[in-house]
């Protein structure tokens, strides 16, 4: 076996240095970051729900205070933005579902459109149940 030659130079790395702001370079990259960022609004709404439950348990005065607080412009704007992000989150999740979920009936694969459509149908039903429960039958 030949002895390994003593290189006097260091080979250049093939890896390109990626900028921290790589996601601003293309719309599709930015859409990816928006999609991933939607999780922050999911977390915000969990906090909001916990506050709501807590205030309801404390009695009517506390509940009314929560409702007044939720109407403050800063909270309202954050909630409207969160709502838009949550709809985006839902659409991206349901659109990815047919690719992640391969359903077979017998030996036949259920068409992807059907898997996707059933998610949207379930979303509609779930939303209707939420409205019905909260607003009263």
């Amino acid at each position, binding site marked *: 076996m030949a002895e390994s030659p003593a290189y006097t130079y260091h080979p250049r790395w093939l890896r390109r240095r*990626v900028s*921290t702001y790589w*996601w601003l370079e293309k719309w599709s990259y930015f859409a990816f*970051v928006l999609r*991933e*960022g939607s*999780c*922050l609004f*999911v*977390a915000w*709404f*969990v*906090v*909001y*729900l*916990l506050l*709501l*439950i*807590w205030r*309801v*348990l404390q*009695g*009517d005065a506390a*509940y*009314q205070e929560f*409702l007044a607080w*939720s*109407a403050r412009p800063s*909270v*309202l704007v954050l*909630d*409207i933005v*969160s*709502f838009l992000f*949550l*709809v985006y*989150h*839902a659409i991206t*999740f*349901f659109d990815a*579902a047919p690719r*992640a979920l391969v359903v077979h009936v017998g030996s036949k694969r259920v068409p992807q459109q059907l898997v996707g459509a059933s998610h949207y149908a*379930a*979303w509609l039903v*779930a*939303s209707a149940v*939420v*409205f019905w*429960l*909260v*607003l*009263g039958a």
Partner: protein
Amino acid sequence: MIKRDAEPFLWMLFSAGGVVSAMLMPALLFLFGVAFPLGWLTPPTRDHMATLLANPLVALALLGLIVLSLFHWAHRFRHTLYDGLQIKHLQEVIAAVCYGGAIIGSAAAVYLLWQAR
């Protein structure tokens, strides 16, 4: 340090949380974050809310929604920080904050919903 074998389990929680939050949160947020504050719809009374929360099925659904959504956030946020901002040197801290936060939030939900019975 997150062990490699925990990753599939955490991913499952992420995925389940993604589905339940997508199904239930837009409607809930529309009502409590947009429609009631703007006066488009009349908010329910405190008694109606308390009755709802005392219902075991509603409480269980809310608990599932809150816990899974928190783990959805924790997992996605952790990976976005790694991949997006390329923060590799703070891995342990980020994982501890994300999953720790999710566990604290879950405990708060269990406590509150238990009180609501």
